[in-house]
C-alpha cells in the first residue's frame, strides 16, 4: 500500500521512506542549522516523520538521533503518524475558543471517531488542532486541506463531511479502484 502524500513526490512510499529522505537531504548542507528545514521538507514529502527518516537525518547531520527526535517533538508542527487524505485542523485561538471552537472540535471528534493527532481507520481524515491561523474574524475556523473555512459550527461540520462523502462517491464512480468502504455520517 502506498502512503498518500500531500505534495506528490515520485519517491514517496512506505518502502521508499529512506529514498525519499535521502532525496530531501541532497538539497541541504550537513549543518545543524538546517535540521528544522529538513524536518519540514521531509514532512512535506511524506506527510509525517517516520522513525526511519529521523534516523537517516541524524546520520546525515552527524548528530545523535535523540537530538532529532527532541527537536521534532518540541515543535507542534511535526506529526509522527501517517496523515489522512484530508487534513482537518480546528483552530483553537482565543476568538475561536470564545465563539465555540471547542464545541466544533467535539463535533469533529464525534463524527470522525478519532482524537486529536489521530487519523481515521479508513485513512480518509486526520484531525488536529492549531493554535491560531489568524482568521479571528471568521471564528470559529476549521482549516481543511490548508483552506480556512469560516464559521464552522457543528451543523457545518456535518455539511462539510457530506460534501466529502459526495466527492468520494463521484470519485468512486470514475475510478473503480478508489478506496472502498463507506463511512457513516
Amino acid at each position, binding site marked *: 500500500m502506498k502512503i498518500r502524500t500531500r505534495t506528490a513526490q515520485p519517491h514517496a512510499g512506505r518502502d521508499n521512506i529512506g529514498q525519499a529522505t535521502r532525496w530531501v537531504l541532497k538539497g541541504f548542507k550537513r549543518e*545543524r*542549522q538546517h535540521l528544522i528545514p529538513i524536518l519540514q521538507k521531509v514532512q512535506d514529502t511524506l506527510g509525517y516523520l517516520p522513525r526511519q527518516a529521523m534516523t537517516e537525518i541524524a546520520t546525515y547531520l552527524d548528530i545523535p538521533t535523540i537530538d532529532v527526535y527532541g527537536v521534532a517533538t*518540541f515543535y*507542534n508542527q511535526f506529526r509522527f503518524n501517517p496523515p489522512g487524505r484530508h487534513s482537518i485542523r480546528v483552530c483553537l485561538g*482565543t476568538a475561536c*475558543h*470564545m465563539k*465555540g471552537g471547542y*464545541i466544533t472540535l467535539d463535533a469533529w471528534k464525534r463524527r470522525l471517531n478519532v482524537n486529536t493527532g489521530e487519523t481515521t481507520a479508513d485513512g480518509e481524515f486526520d484531525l488536529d488542532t492549531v493554535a491560531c491561523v489568524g482568521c479571528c474574524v471568521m471564528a470559529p475556523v476549521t482549516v481543511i486541506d490548508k483552506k480556512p473555512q469560516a464559521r464552522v459550527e457543528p451543523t457545518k461540520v456535518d455539511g462539510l463531511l457530506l460534501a466529502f462523502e459526495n466527492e468520494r462517491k463521484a470519485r468512486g464512480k470514475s475510478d473503480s479502484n478508489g478506496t472502498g468502504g463507506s463511512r457513516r455520517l
Partner: protein
Amino acid sequence: MTAMEPAVAAAFEEIRKRAKKRWQGKPGQTVILVGAATCGRAAGALEVLKTLRNEVKKHHLDCPVIEVGCQGHCYAEPLVTISKPGYPPICYGYVNPVIAEKLIQEFILGDNPCPEFALGAFGANDLVPSFADFPRAKYEKKIVLANCGHIDPTEIDHYIAGGGYAALARALKMNPQAIIDEIKRSGLRGRGGAGFPTGEKWQSGREARGQPKYVVGNADEGDPGAFMDRALLESDPHCVLEGMSIAGYAVGARYGYIYVRAEYPLAVERLQTALRQARESHLLGAHILGGHFSFDIRLFQGSGAFVCGEATALVASIEGHPGIPRLRPPRLTTRGLFGKPTVVNNVKTLASVPHIINHGAAWFAGTGTKESRGTAVFALAGKVVNTGLVEVPMGTTLRQIIYEVGGGIPKGKRFKAVQIGGPSGGCLPEAALDLPVDFDSLRAAGAMMGSGGMVVLDEDDCMVEIARYFLEFTQRESCGHCTFCRLGTKQMLELLTDFTFGKGKVEDIDRLKQLAEDVKDGSFCGLGRTAPNPILTTLRYFRNEYEEHITMGRCPALMCPHLIAYYILPDKCERSCDACVGTCTVEAISPNKKRIKVIDQEKCVKCGTCLKACPPQYNAVVKLSPPSEVPKT
C-alpha cells in the same frame, strides 16, 4: 563605507522610473482591487476574484483586476475597491460572485456605482458615505498599515511606485550612526510587546564586536487571537524587508533572517516572492543598488512553538535546537545567532523604520504619548461589530477603540471585559475602559500590550473559563526548562479546571493567587513570568465569578459546559415546529406525547445548536445553570 554614494541614488532613480511607468496607470482606466489576504480568502475572495477576471475578459475591458492584501475591514470581507475615473475609489463589502458580476455590469459597463453594496468611499461624494466621515476615521491613523490593501503585495514595482524603498536609498547615503540617532530621536519602541527602545538596541548591536552580524525579523506571532503580523506580511511584505535592510545597514549586519510561523502559508509565499523580486532589483544581496553595502535575508519557517517569540528561544530555533530560552546577559546584541551580535526586532517595528527615515523622527514622535511614540496596531476580534485590524495613535483609550473604531458590542449585549495581549496579557473590565493604550498604562493595569491581540468579551463569556483556556495554552507551550513555569502552570491549570467543573474550595482561590504570584516571580523567561496574568487580572476584577463557580456550582455567563444544561420551555415550545429535532447533532431531542420537544440530558453534548435553531418567535430553548435547575419530569 562612504557617506555619499552617488551611484546608489542614480541606480534607485532608474528603478523608480521603471516602477512609476508601470504603475502610474493610463488616464481614464478603471482599476479593481480585491482584498485576498487569508481572512478574505476564508470569506470567499478567490471566487470573487475569479468572477471579476472572467467578466473583464468576457467584455474585453481594459481594466486591471489586482489582488491586494487586507485593509483592516475584516468584518466585511470579501472587499472589492473600484477606482473609476469621475468617481472616488469606492469600496464594496460582503461581495460574492453575484454582486461582483453586478458591479461589472452596472458600474463598469454602465454608470451606476451601486451604492447599496458600498461600504464607503475614499473621497467625498454625493452617493456613498466617505470613510473620512466614519466615526473610526477620527481615531485611526495608519502608518505601518498605510499600504495594506492598496498595493499588490506580489509586485515590487507597485510598492516602489508608491514611494517604497526610497527610505533605503536615502539611508544608504546617510552615516549608519546618523540613522541610529534618528531612530532614537523618534522614540520608537519594540512592537513585540516589551517596548524596548529600538534605537538603543541597534546602538548596542552596532557597537558589539564580532562578524558577521545578524538582524532577525520576528514574525512568530504565536498569540492566539492576534493576526497583525500575518496581515502585514501578506499585504505589504516589502515594507518589512526595507526596514530590515535599513536595520542591517545601521548595525553593520551582513545577513538577516525573517522568522515566520509555518501556520501562515500565504505570508510565507508572499515573502518568498518579495525576497526574489528585491534581489532581482538589486535592493537585496551583494552591493545593494551598486553601492558598498551587502545584505541578504533568508526566510525561516517557525514550527509552531509559542515560546519561540522569546528572542533567545527564537535564535536557538534558527540554529536547529529546541526553542528553549537562555539566560541573559549576555544580550543577543553581544552574543546572538551562531554566537554573533544579533538584533531581533518585531516585524511591525521594522515596518515603522522606513516611515521614520522618510518623514523624519520629529514627524513620528508627533504621534502618540510622551513615553510611547507612534501608533499601536491591534487585531480586534471577539464580540465586537467591526472586527479587523486597527491602527491608532498610542494613548487612544480602550473605549474609543472598542466603541468608536470597533462599533461596540453586537446584538445589544453587555460589555464584560477586553482581553489584551493574549496569554501574556490580561482581562480588563469596564472600569478600565478609559485607560489609554500605551506600553506603561497597560502594564500598570495588569495587562500588557503584547503583540497586539485584542479580544472583546461580552456577558456570555465566562472569566474563569478564559483564564483556564489561556493556562491550558501556556501550560502546553511551556518549554519545560524551569520548574516554576513547568509545574506551576500545570498546578494552576488543574485548579482552574476544577473550578469550571464546579469543584474546589473557596480557599483554593487564594492558593491559586499565591501560586500565580510565585510563578510570576520565579519563572525564567517572559512566557512563564507573564503566564499568570490572565489569572491575576480575572481574580482582581471578576473574583465573584470564581466564587459563584465554586460555592453554587453555577457559571454566571452560562458558558462552562459542565455547569450548564439546555432546556426547552414547554409553554413556549410550538407543537408543529421540529427545527431543533432536525438540527440536533446527537439526536438527543424528541417530541413527547403532546408534541412538546424534550432534551435527553444524558445524550446532550451541549453544542447549543438547538438554541440557534429555535425560531426567534418561540425562543423556547434556554440555558440553565447549575444543571440541577432543569425540572424533573
